[in-house]
């Protein structure tokens, strides 16, 4: 398959003239990738799309590298010709968008129909071919010697020095194909055309993955530039500095700051969030009189109130220090409530750091109520490794999973809080505090489903939405998001308040988000109006 460099039409192998525009195709050689079918320029060793090695056809010689730095002689295109080829090109495009369907053999994933038609695979060879052409022509010795001298080498034109070192973005690759105007043609250009040499060309020069061109260090030309070269360099620079004409459908990549927040806006926003956070330290819980506990919290409070004194509750602190800030207040409230009811608590964790967090909470409890003692009223069992398998082992025998306790390293039978416990079935309630949905899921599947012990999950607000189905199915008796849950629990269980005053902060945060939503849309609407 040969792709015409001027109009992009695909002509069967071996043809000498393009079927669509009639240009000579004598100098164009392509390689079809054996694994993905993409068209590659002759000098490619690896497919530009799938990176498979391109095999050489029989008798085909690998193109020597030295040809790449030969002087560049562009195909001579008169303006008239250009217009016609463009027309053909547009027609083909219109056809493609009319039918809408992608030709299955050519469809590229992830591209709009028009792009797939002209996209990298078809497009790359076009502009690339113009770059290859000179080398081929040079090889065949058809180029008149005079043009060869008059024109700057391709590589030099591409090198950054000529571009003035400025960031050129997409222009860098597209323009080498543009600077092709040969000297005699440049003079023939009409004034309008000279003013914007790219006019009408943008369709012809699609956004091309530059990676198809192997990078080679530029070879510096030692000779002083001729006047034509100067003129061309200037022209090229003009073109390069201008915003590159984008292919239809391509997006202009705006700097992100233009779409999002500038740094100053960011700082203001962050200070507002910080203020919302410190607000309760000054207002000290003005909103707390509005707090009204929801059903799920009330259910847990009722359950604990109804427990006989001396009942056994298993608590599992399955959260990491990252989320301790949210779960600690609720854990403290629940443990305070349980301690007031003189319920016996057995504490464990399925996360290594969890037991340390539990220890800190119980230190607070023993400070507050000194007659609630370790060993007699509560025991820390420790960390239970093994995830699913670990939890399953609790079902059969507690003593297998934990031989000694965490703080005093004594056998469980010696401690009065655990002496009567054999398996999980001896617990009246199980309360799990967790920061990920998977852990709660495991508890439900491995423990709750096997033993039917009343089961409560206290989780971070972030994972609560994912666990709601378990509450609906009745496997979780209560599911409490910790942030608001702590505030509600302190009120409902009338335990010593330590998180209640945070309700001010939560209210402020919601108002802040509401304001953010309004402001961003107001600014967006204004910018949109100005833009139109």
């Amino acid at each position, binding site marked *: 398959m040969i792709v015409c460099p001027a109009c992009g039409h695909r002509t069967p192998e071996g043809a000498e003239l393009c079927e669509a525009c009639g240009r000579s195709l004598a100098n164009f050689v392509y390689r079809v990738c054996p694994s993905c079918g993409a068209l590659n320029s002759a000098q490619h060793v690896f497919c530009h799309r799938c990176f498979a090695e391109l095999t050489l056809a029989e008798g085909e010689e690998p193109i020597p590298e030295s040809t790449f730095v030969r002087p560049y002689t562009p195909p001579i295109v008169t303006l008239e010709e250009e217009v016609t080829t463009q027309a053909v090109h547009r027609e083909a495009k219109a056809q493609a968008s009319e039918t809408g369907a992608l030709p299955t053999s050519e469809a590229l994933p992830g591209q709009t129909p028009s792009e797939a038609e002209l996209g990298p695979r078809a497009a790359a060879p076009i502009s690339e071919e113009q770059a290859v052409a000179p080398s081929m022509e040079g090889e065949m010795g058809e180029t008149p010697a005079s043009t060869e001298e008059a024109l700057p080498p391709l590589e030099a034109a591409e090198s950054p020095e000529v571009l003035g070192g400025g960031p050129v973005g997409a222009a860098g690759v597209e323009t080498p194909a543009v600077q092709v105007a040969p000297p005699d043609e440049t003079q023939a250009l009409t004034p309008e055309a000279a003013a914007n040499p790219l006019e009408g060309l943008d369709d012809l020069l699609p956004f091309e993955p530059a990676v198809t061109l192997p990078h080679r260090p530029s070879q510096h030309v030692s000779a002083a530039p001729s006047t034509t070269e100067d003129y061309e360099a200037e022209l090229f620079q003009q073109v390069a500095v201008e915003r590159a004409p984008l292919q239809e459908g391509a997006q202009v990549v705006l700097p992100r700051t233009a779409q999002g927040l500038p740094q100053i806006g960011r700082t203001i926003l962050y200070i507002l969030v910080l203020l919302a956070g410190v607000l309760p330290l000054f207002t000290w819980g003005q909103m707390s009189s*509005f707090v009204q506990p929801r059903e799920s919290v009330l259910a847990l409070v009722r359950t604990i109130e109804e427990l006989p004194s001396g009942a056994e509750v298993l608590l599992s602190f399955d959260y990491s220090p990252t989320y301790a*800030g949210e779960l600690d207040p609720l854990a403290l409230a629940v443990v305070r409530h349980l301690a007031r009811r003189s319920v016996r608590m057995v504490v464990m964790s399925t996360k290594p750091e969890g037991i340390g967090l539990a220890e800190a909470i119980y230190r607070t409890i023993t400070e507050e109520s000194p007659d609630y003692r370790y060993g007699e009223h509560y025991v820390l069992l420790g960390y239970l490794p093994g995830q699913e398998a670990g939890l399953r082992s609790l079902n059969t025998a507690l003593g297998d999973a934990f031989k000694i306790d965490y703080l005093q390293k004594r056998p469980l039978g010696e401690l009065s809080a655990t002496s009567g416990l054999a398996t999980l079935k001896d617990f009246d309630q199980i309360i799990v505090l967790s920061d990920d949905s998977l852990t709660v899921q495991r508890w439900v599947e491995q423990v709750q489903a096997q033993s039917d012990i009343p089961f409560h999950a206290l989780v971070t607000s972030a994972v609560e939405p994912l666990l709601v189905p378990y509450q609906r199915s009745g496997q979780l008796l209560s599911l409490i998001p910790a942030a*608001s849950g702590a505030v509600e629990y302190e009120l409902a269980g009338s335990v010593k308040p330590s998180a209640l005053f945070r309700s001010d902060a939560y209210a402020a945060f919601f108002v802040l*988000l509401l304001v953010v939503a309004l402001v961003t*849309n107001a600014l967006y609407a204004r910018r949109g109006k100005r833009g139109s």
Partner: protein
Amino acid sequence: MRRFLPIAVAIICGLWVLADFFVSHPLIDSVGAKLLEGVMILAAFALFAGILNLLGFHARRISKDQKDWGYRLVLMVALGGTLIAGIVLPGSGALSWIFGYMYYPLQSTMAALLAFFVVSAAYRAFRLRNGEALIMLITSLVVLLAQLPFSNRISPYLPLLRKWILDVPVTAGTRGIILGTALGTITTSLRILLAVDHPYAQD
């Protein structure tokens, strides 16, 4: 050989563990368990390779451009110090001091920075560029409002609405995502197990 051996190992180990997954047979089970333990050991070694990379990365940067050398030095000293405290001096209390007074506050405050980032992300995400953004904006504000401890007071229907949203559309959404992910995971794993893809076998 350089590519053949790793591919063969991948296929054999993979198929063995897959068999272990479905079939219970003493030989398969015991070898399978050993392979899983091996994965744990390899991950630990990989971690040390990662730590070497981290040290090398920053040492190289210090020697190359000398910028930020102070910060990089702090990183390397902290890393080395913690490693020594944990490996050479276990049980001296040094590690638990580092954990309690340095690591824990740093970690939990880094997590707290998410509050800022969530708000600045909301600034972009809440912009009504299309219908999708509108749906997302309304849902998140309703769910957030109903999450507040006084939502009952605003309207008794608010928590009910939130519960319904989480019960029906959100459950459907997450279930759809999980099912789709499962399909993708299965084909991706099959590609590795059948050696269609072998990203590990590099020259």
